[in-house]
């Protein structure tokens, strides 16, 4: 059990929390929060793998930075989608949002 494994297990804890929340949450906002947890786990695993192995350092760190940028873009889009869904259906519960119509 070395440092690398400890960091990776922490990232896996984040992944497990995120998956559990994604499956069990009932509102779209709750699911968004769970997705952010999972993305954080991904970033942590990337940085740990680049810092504690012979790999090139910048690859992992900048990869984590890109993950953060993607998370920001994703959160923006999901916010807009949640607003539109709420305006049209009056709720953001995932079980009520089941109609596809143009």
């Amino acid at each position, binding site marked *: 059990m070395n440092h690398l494994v400890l960091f990776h297990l922490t990232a896996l804890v984040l992944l497990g929390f995120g998956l559990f929340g994604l499956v069990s949450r009932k509102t779209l906002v709750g699911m968004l929060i769970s997705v952010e947890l999972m993305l*954080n786990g991904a970033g942590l695993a990337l940085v740990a793998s680049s810092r504690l192995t012979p790999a090139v350092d910048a690859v992992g760190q900048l990869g984590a930075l890109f993950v953060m940028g993607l998370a920001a873009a994703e959160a923006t889009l999901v916010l807009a989608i949640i607003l539109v869904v709420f305006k049209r259906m009056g709720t953001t519960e995932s079980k009520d949002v089941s109609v596809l119509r143009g």
Partner: protein
Amino acid sequence: MEIIINNLVYAAFGFYLLLIIVGGLAAIMAKSLVRALVGLIMTLFGVAGMYFLMAATFIALMQILIYIGAVSVLIFFSIMLTRVPDGEAGMENSSRKPSGRILLTMVTALMPAFILGAIVIRNCPPALKLKPETSLAELGKFLTGPYSLAFELISVVLFVAMAGAVLLGFERRK
């Protein structure tokens, strides 16, 4: 001296792990979405601390700046803007779930994590000593050299996301 420092590092790791676990549990279990968001912020601080532990200062500061500063404010906005008229903001319906379903959810959600964990524990490469910190100038050179395409693409992605959000938010005139 080295033993003391080693123990300090482990203590810091444990503290950040505690932050991550408590915050994560709050983020996925809390009935109120505002509390869940506070839990998420706690977890983000824990992850930032882990970046500091690995001497990845720039990434840790970016984590605080982007995630805690920007993304959580966005999530807060989406909680506030989707409140139902005569209810408190951001409450999830508390229809009781049968405990069997919670168990099934746990199995479904934690199976990938457990499989990956077994793989990680079985084939872990030997850990190295922490490398000296990569300077910001080096990171910038890498960003504009080998990663320049990804760098440009992420700016396009951000622009498209913002433009899409604005487009989605427009009221359609009847």
